[in-house]
Structure formats: structure tokens, C-alpha cells
């Protein structure tokens, strides 16, 4: 278990006039993990990242990055944090190599270290062939990969990626995710990814936080997230049994904790406040009923997705 906290926010709040973009955020991110900050557009993800980097000041609360106050010691924070903004831009009339060199110089690196790093990083993000072409000729995917190389120029302990897969084709997304995983597992860097594309990001995150309307809805490993989000809501089970007769309904109804039961198109829909699957299966099999289908509704990531992410674009 990774347990050393590297980023910690306490009561972090950002208001724009009456609008609260981030509301009292308490978040801990551990060293070496990939943390996914997921949420629909306008949920306050980018604002949170900006506050971590000291690019905007919190209205209230503090953000601590590797022991530094992100608002007061911005230079120290920026020395160890690499940031890839969404829609990253480069100087289009400079080559990929020149752009990276400029970043290296701004970080106060020695010239020979800069050149060495540029070669290595361009190799790593598969841009060696186009390193001396102007960035204006790069495709979106190439720019995004150059962006990763750019954040790595300072050899950061922490990398913050804002919507790194946005606008990439499926192949580009796969490459980007592989690259991010490698940065975490191989180089042992802490990575924070913000995204509204839950399906893409969930595969590689160790933990995720679901962010909706400035509030952190749930946080934890992806497997347990559904449970947390829908904690206070009834569990809905769909079951298909053979034979479907009145007796079986009665039998199911006798289980403790069931609040509602109905039959729709040959399926029995059961609502309960507690977990009853085990008991249900046992009861049915003891009485020689055949279970053809059993599914729990509304606890999957898909359901989180459709509830919070879809239709809010």
C-alpha cells in the first residue's frame, strides 16, 4: 500500500463571484499513484489543478504539494511539478526540439543536460523523426505527446495532466495511456489525471475521485467506487427464474429487507436496502428453481457515468 501523502488539500475552496467552482475540497494523494480526477465539464477539475500549481489563488483553504504551500511557494512547487494543460500550445514556428530546449532553459538546466534529455524524451514519446520539424506541422496527437515530453523536461516528481486524451483517436489514446502508465510504474512518479472521459481513464488509475459541481462525490479505487456513490440508494436486482410462478415471488418477498418487488417482461425486479444476493440464490436453489440471469443494477461505473457524465457536455 502506498501511504506517503504527497499532495494534500485542506478545505480548498474557489469562488467566482457567487459561483462556487470548488467547494471545501479535502483530498489526499499518495506518492507514486495514478490518481484520476473525474467529472463532467465544469465540475471544477481544472480549477483544482490550477490551485495545486499556484496558477490561481484559492478563496479559502490550502493546498500542500510535497510539503510546500502551493499558493505561497509557487516556484518551489513548479520546480517539482510538471503540468500539461488541456489544449497545450507550443511555439508553432519553433521545432519540437527548440520548444523543449526553451522549457529546459527556463528550468535552469545545464545545456548538455538539456540536449541529452531532449533526445531521450523525444525517443520515448516517439517523436525522434520529427524533432527538427516546426511544431506547426505536428498533428494533435504529436503535440500532445510533445506536451508529455515537455512536462518531463524538468524531471518532475509529480505530473499533472489535464484532459490528456481529449481529441485523440483511439490509437492515440492507447499510446497516451501506455505512456502515462509507464511514467508511473517505471519512473515511480505521482500522476494526477483530470478527465471527463471516465471510460478511457479508469483502466489506468489506481484511485479516482469523482468530482461533480465542485464537490468530491466519492474517492477510492475504481472497483469500490460504485458502492460509495450509490451508498444511500436501494439496491436493484434483476432476476430471471424458471419456472416463474406466484410461489417464487412470495418466497423472495419473505427475505428481510426487500422494499419492492415487481415482475416486468418475465424478469423480477427486486429493490432492497441491504445486500440480499447470497440469500436469494441460496433460497432459490434450495427450492429447485433455475436462475437464468441475475444482475445488480445501478452500481456499475456505467451507471455513475450515465448519471453524472453523460448529457452534461
Amino acid at each position, binding site marked *: 500500500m502506498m501511504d506517503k501523502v504527497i499532495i494534500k488539500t485542506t478545505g480548498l475552496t474557489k469562488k467566482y463571484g457567487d459561483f462556487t467552482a470548488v467547494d471545501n475540497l479535502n483530498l489526499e494523494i499518495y506518492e507514486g499513484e495514478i490518481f484520476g480526477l473525474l467529472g463532467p465539464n465544469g465540475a471544477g477539475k*481544472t480549477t483544482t489543478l490550477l490551485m495545486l500549481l499556484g496558477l490561481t489563488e484559492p478563496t479559502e483553504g490550502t493546498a500542500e504539494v510535497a510539503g510546500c504551500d502551493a499558493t505561497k511557494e509557487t516556484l518551489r512547487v*513548479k520546480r517539482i*511539478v510538471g503540468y500539461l494543460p*488541456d489544449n497545450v*500550445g*507550443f511555439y508553432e514556428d519553433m521545432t519540437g526540439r527548440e520548444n523543449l530546449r*526553451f522549457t529546459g532553459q*527556463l*528550468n*535552469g538546466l545545464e545545456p548538455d543536460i538539456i540536449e541529452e534529455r531532449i533526445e531521450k524524451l523525444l525517443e520515448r514519446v516517439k517523436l525522434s523523426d520529427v524533432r527538427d520539424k516546426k511544431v506547426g506541422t505536428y498533428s494533435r496527437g504529436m503535440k500532445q505527446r510533445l506536451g508529455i515530453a515537455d512536462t518531463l523536461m524538468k524531471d518532475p516528481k509529480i505530473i499533472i495532466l489535464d484532459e490528456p486524451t481529449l481529441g485523440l483517436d483511439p490509437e492515440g489514446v492507447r499510446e497516451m495511456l501506455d505512456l502515462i502508465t509507464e511514467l508511473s510504474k517505471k519512473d515511480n512518479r505521482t500522476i494526477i489525471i483530470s478527465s471527463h472521459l471516465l471510460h478511457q481513464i479508469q483502466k489506468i488509475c489506481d484511485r479516482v475521485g469523482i468530482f461533480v459541481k465542485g464537490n468530491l462525490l466519492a474517492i477510492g479505487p475504481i472497483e469500490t467506487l460504485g458502492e460509495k456513490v450509490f451508498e444511500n440508494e436501494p439496491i436493484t436486482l434483476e432476476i430471471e427464474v424458471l419456472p416463474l410462478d406466484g410461489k417464487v415471488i412470495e418466497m423472495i418477498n419473505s427475505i428481510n429487507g426487500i422494499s419492492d418487488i415487481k415482475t416486468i417482461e418475465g424478469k423480477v425486479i427486486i429493490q432492497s436496502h441491504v445486500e440480499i444476493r447470497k440469500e436469494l440464490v441460496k433460497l432459490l436453489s434450495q427450492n429447485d428453481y433455475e436462475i437464468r440471469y441475475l444482475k445488480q443494477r445501478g452500481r456499475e461505473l456505467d451507471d455513475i457515468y450515465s448519471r453524472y457524465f453523460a448529457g452534461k457536455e
Partner: protein
Amino acid sequence: MNKSGLWILYKKELADHLHSKRFFIVLFIIAITGFSSIFAAGKGIVEAIGKQESDTFVFLRLFTASDGSIPSFISFMSFLGPFVGLALGFDSINGERNRGTLSRLMAQPIARDSIINGKFLAGVTIIALMVFVLGVAIGALGIIMTGVPPTVDELFRIFTYLVLTIFYMSFWLALSQLFSILFKQTATSALAVIAVWLFLAIFLGLLINVLADFLYPLNSTSTLDIALKNSKMKLYLNRISPTTLYDETTITLLNPGVRSLGFVSQEQLIGAIPSALPFLQSLMIIWPHFVSLIAINMICFTISYIYFMKQEIRA
């Protein structure tokens, strides 16, 4: 670390300017107007030499005289100053913002102010380079045309005039940069600078005339006191405009005969010897103007600081 950040940004901005087409367009326009005005003035001077008392300060008159068809060099510079500042600065910050490079830049361990400092200093360097190269080149052309070398006094005056021109153009650069921080769109900031330019160059003077004539109406019955107040008000309010400040300073510097920029009564003139002022005396007359020009540069810059240091940088 901070200092090197500023230095690196400065070098990059300078290189960007020198490679940009915009810089060449500006240089081209300035050079064309400068040379043509000097050429016209030089021709007039050559014809007039030896005829009247026009033999004094020939070199200075190259810059101030006009043959009627082409305006003088100084009026061209006064007119084109805003254009130079505008061209070099109107998109300095919001251009980076729109291209998405600003947030990447800000994520690097450099102080925020080094970004605007570096950009401003690079712009000023470009302006200084242009002004001095042009000043020397057309001065040389003038010498060749008229055959009259400048005196030391004249050299001091021209040098001070060129420095003044740099400050004047820097003001417009600082203003353009300020607008590029305040407005998100480059077109908006460019238009804002043009609006300020037109306002100061044309409308301010008209407004002041209307206001002064309203408060101190001039007619056949108005007293001397009213007439004086009317004129004073016009004069002082017009000095709000940096263009007026610049023009008055230029005239005083390049025309040693100018002894005062305000009002002089008949009594004060009694006993005055009608001769040219030495350079330092001329400089003394316009010293407040000079300081004001530097001050408005600083005001623009201070406002830029206040906004930029607190601004949220989003892609």
C-alpha cells in the same frame, strides 16, 4: 533562477521579434517615411542656405523642417510612435494565452513578472535599435545632402531626442501590453490601443476646446483674464496626451529658439536677448515633460503588474 528566467525570455522574445514579418513591416514604414522626410527637408535647406539667417542649426532643421509636401521627420515620429508600440505589443500576453503557451510557460519555475518584464524589455530593445539605427542613418544622409556637419550641441540635442522617442514609443508598447493583459482577444486589444490613440490624437483636443470655450467663453467682451484662463486650460489639459508631451518636448529640444512653453507677458520679454538657448537650458524647460513621459510608462507597467500577478491563467 529568477534572473536567468528573465534573460531567457528576453532572448527568446528578441529573436521572435527579429524573425517576425511584423518587425520588418514596421521597420520598412519607419525607414521609408524617415528617409523621405529627411530628403525633402534636406532639399529645402540646400536651396535656402546662404539666403537668410538660416545657416544656424542646419542639422537640427533637417529633422524639424518640412518642404510642405512631406511632413517633417519629427511629426512622422510623433504620428507613427503609437503604431510601433501597437505593432510590437498588442498581442504579447493574450496571443500566448490564445495559443495555449502561456499556461505552459507559467508552469515553469519562473517568476510571473519576468514574463511581462522580458517581453517589455525585448520590445524596448527593438524600438531602441530601430530608432538609433534610423537616427544615425538619416543623420548621415542629411550631412551628405547639405554638407553641413552637426555641432556638439546639436549632437546632444539629437541624441536626447532619440532617447525621448524611445520613451514615447515605449509608452505605447507598455499600453499595448497592458491591453493585451486586460483583454482576452488580440483583436480587442489592438482596437483598444487604436481607440486610445485616436482619442488622444484627435478627440481630446476637440473636447478640451469645447470645454474651455464653455467655461471661459471668448467673445468681444471677454477680459484678458478670461482669455488667459481659456488658453491655459487648453494648454494644460492637452498635456494629458503623451503625444502633446512628446511634441512639445521635441520642439523645445530641436528648436533652440524656444524659451518657454507657457505664456510670457510683454514685461517678461523686456531685456531678453533673442538668441538660441544652450542645450542644458532647453533640457531644463522640458524636464517635467520628460519625467512625465517616463512616469506614464511606469503607470502602465504598474497596472500591468497588478492585473497580471493576480490573473488566473487558463488554457
